[in-house]
């Protein structure tokens, strides 16, 4: 390899590095992002792990503040992931949350904290003892979710995210003792985003 080729190669490498340094910060006010994924979730008081389908939409209000809404739906036969056959467990489970996020970190790699009040909608058996046929009833319970995670915005439209969440609440509409829905779960995947307003540089 001649000296000219080496110089050209070095120039190309340096220009690539400069290009990567000049990549714009995608996370900025007006960024709208969304994704859906499967979130393995552990209901630790029932020692049961289920698959929840998680979807979220988030909008960046400021450089560090965002507003976010998300929903979890228990996948059909989702509690087959790992179950201890709890005596009382929802036959169907949906949770909906809305809250705010705080984002730390510079440029395109962010650490996120979210706090989201919400509700859990669940369908529970209504007999205290095993009676056939079993009757079921839907109920709505207050709940909240706390979430920490990280996101890497690697292109104008896509990012990777990984999150750990904790949520809690009680299903009261049950015979005898109420059922805790304390749970922790993980979710990760590819997210999509769009900057919805142009900003003056």
């Amino acid at each position: 390899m001649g000296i000219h080729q080496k110089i050209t190669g070095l120039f190309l490498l340096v220009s690539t590095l400069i290009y990567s340094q000049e990549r714009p910060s995608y996370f900025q006010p007006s960024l709208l992002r969304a994704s859906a994924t499967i979130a393995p979730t552990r209901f630790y008081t029932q020692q049961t792990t289920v698959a929840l389908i998680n979807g979220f939409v988030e909008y960046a209000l400021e450089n560090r503040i965002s507003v976010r809404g998300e929903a979890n739906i228990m996948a059909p036969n989702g509690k087959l992931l790992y179950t201890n056959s709890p005596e009382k467990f929802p036959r169907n489970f949906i949770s909906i949350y809305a809250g705010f996020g705080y984002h730390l970190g510079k440029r395109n790699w962010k650490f996120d904290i979210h706090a989201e009040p919400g509700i859990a909608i669940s369908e529970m058996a209504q007999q205290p003892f095993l009676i056939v046929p079993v009757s079921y009833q839907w109920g709505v319970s207050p709940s909240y979710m706390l979430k920490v995670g990280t996101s890497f915005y690697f292109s104008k439209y896509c990012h990777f995210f990984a999150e750990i969440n904790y949520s809690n609440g009680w299903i009261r509409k049950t015979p005898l003792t109420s059922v805790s829905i304390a749970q922790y779960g993980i979710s990760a995947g590819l997210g999509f985003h769009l900057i919805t307003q142009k900003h003056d540089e």
Partner: protein
Amino acid sequence: MKLIFLFLMSFLALQVNAQEQRMFNPAGMLSLGGRTTVSLFNDHKNEMTGTGIGGQFRLRFSDAVNTDWFFDYITSDILNYAHRTDYHIGWSVLFYPINHLAYFHQPKDFKPKFRPYILAGHCFDYSKIEAKVSPLDGPMSAERWSSAVQAGLGTHLELSPRFDISLTGQYMIHLGNHIETDYDFTTGALSFNEHKGASLAGHVLVTLSLNYKIAKLWGFTRR
């Protein structure tokens, strides 16, 4: 002539000063937020800690006075024989006692800060108590409407000029009709008794809310 000129100049100086003051005037600021509440030390016999969610908007009237307009949905257990649901809709006045300190005026380089307040207010309350195990002839429940007053202390943690987290501890006293549950632990018989007239049953509410300022309905903000 000189006297008139001096008078006009002093008037102009006052105008400029007034504009400087108006730049920091938060009156008319409207916030929207979500909240989660824990209900403690409930006055109802055998009632356990309750948890709830809700929403609120906050409308500020002056530098030192703000108002919360809220809705709460709280559920709790009465041991293992009944459960209770409370809906609160009401308002509170927030007063910032040390708002005048220079610490709170940071127009350029914002730094997160605490802003403590005293609050007092009023709400309407709908409560429903339901038996955990329904008798054979159908669900068993009792309900009531009442009014309540509340007062307490709290603080905002302002994380940006427009976003804050607020923690409030308050005592709420229900005024009006109330429901009592009688449960016979030997036979498992449950009955609800409604009592007319005022009673001072209450509970402690600890509320954590997240709020974002979405609009300024009146007043001036100089950019």
